[in-house]
């Protein structure tokens, strides 16, 4: 693997000194060789990096990832119940930190990132005001399933991502869930599907799209109630979002819903549906008419990155 060293104008602050660390045996490279990804070309582009926790069992790698976490992240990961949940929590933070570092061309050490939550609890990067040379307009969002953790990255645009196993079964019936949480028009479109497997898959697709939107909006589940907006999967890969008509004595939750968001829905590795949503500020474009540019990598941080978009592993849903 090679990496380019980019020169920026002006003096670059020296990254904070790190305790000396010898790379664990079997790992040839320290953090600085996370190869820089292709840049995010525009606000319409989203990059997704994912790990498969079940495949990451090399203890020296896991120790290396654990070392990237802040003390509170480490404490939080260890507070999870059992080794599997602990590993997932740890990998989620390691994935986020290493991914963000890539998009600064490794100028920022994965360990250096600090985070805060917006007033609704959505995590964001905290940039210290003395580092104005070192601010990147990066937005991120993370989604977990039992077997995959994904991190979506966008430039200058709030982003939401949700991944679910395609065959995921629900304990409640699809229509009862839809009636309780979705809009009437979404319930109708699901009810028309006769085959129960097809209906279940359609539910999961809608679920991931709605989750991705709520996460992108960043106001929490109650800030964008699922039954206040409808999502339709139209032909030509267009995904349309519409605010549900307001009933007069409803509370004002849902007033923050906007329709200027762009979506992409893909099937990943034939096992997952992945929905990505970013804010669309381009003027004059029809809702969802210009496709979201999406690139997806499977990663074992510091070890191997595999571009999977453009292959059968990532299929855009039409």
């Amino acid at each position: 693997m090679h990496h380019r060293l980019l020169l920026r104008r002006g003096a670059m602050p020296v990254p904070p000194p790190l305790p000396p660390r010898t790379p664990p045996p079997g790992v040839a490279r320290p953090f600085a060789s996370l190869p820089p990804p292709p840049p995010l070309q525009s606000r319409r582009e989203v990059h997704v990096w994912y790990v498969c926790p079940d495949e990451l069992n090399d203890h020296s790698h896991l120790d290396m990832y654990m070392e990237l976490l802040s003390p509170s992240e480490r404490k939080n990961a260890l507070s999870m119940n059992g080794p599997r949940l602990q590993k997932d929590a740890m990998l989620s933070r390691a994935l986020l930190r290493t991914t963000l570092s890539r998009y600064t061309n490794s100028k920022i050490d994965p360990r250096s990132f600090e985070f805060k939550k917006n007033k609704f609890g959505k995590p964001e990067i905290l940039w210290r005001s003395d580092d104005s040379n070192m601010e990147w307009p990066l937005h991120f969002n993370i989604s977990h399933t039992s077997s995959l953790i994904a991190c979506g990255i966008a430039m200058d645009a709030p982003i939401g991502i949700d991944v679910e196993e395609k065959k995921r079964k629900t304990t409640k019936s699809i229509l009862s869930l839809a009636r309780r949480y979705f809009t009437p028009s979404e319930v109708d479109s699901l009810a028309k599907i006769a085959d129960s497997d097809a209906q279940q898959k359609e539910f999961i697709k809608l679920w991931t799209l709605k989750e991705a939107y709520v996460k992108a909006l960043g106001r929490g589940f109650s800030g964008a109630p699922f039954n206040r907006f409808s999502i339709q999967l139209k032909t030509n890969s267009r995904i349309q979002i519409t605010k549900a008509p307001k009933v007069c004595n409803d509370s004002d939750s849902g007033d923050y819903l906007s329709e200027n968001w762009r979506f992409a829905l893909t099937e990943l590795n034939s096992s997952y549906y992945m929905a990505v949503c970013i804010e669309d500020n381009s003027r004059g474009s029809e809702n969802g008419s210009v496709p979201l540019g999406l690139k997806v990598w499977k990663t074992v941080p510091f070890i191997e990155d595999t571009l999977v978009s453009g292959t059968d592993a990532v299929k855009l849903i039409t």
Partner: protein
Amino acid sequence: MAMAAARRALLSHLRVPVLARPAAAAGSVPAARLLSSATEEGSKGSFLDKGEVADRIVSVVKNFQKVEPSKVSTVADAHRTADSDLGVTPNAHFQKDLGLDSLDTVEIVMAFEEEFGFEIPDNEAEKIDSIKTAVDFVASHPQAK
């Protein structure tokens, strides 16, 4: 014929609750509220006993965790089945202890609604992230049955 007779016999011996859901008695004091406040002792009014709520909540979550072997078709199902007898304690946190995600939590909230007979608004549901918060919420709502 035999089935119908058996059913009649069974029904005549079953105690069927006569309390209507509060929503059904629009415009008047719900029968449930009147009856329950008449029969509850002390100053609790129509609130459920916290210990009873906790037992019922734990039981709902345990049932949710169990996935029938024939239905295990994803990694998540397998993980959940393996964990189903562990971890559902009165202190269990849905995400940290039980590994539940947002779709699971939404289903569990629905299961609580069915168990206790009242709808939980989204802004309240969002705060229910553990057995304890679920118990506190249900025990503090007079509509809970």
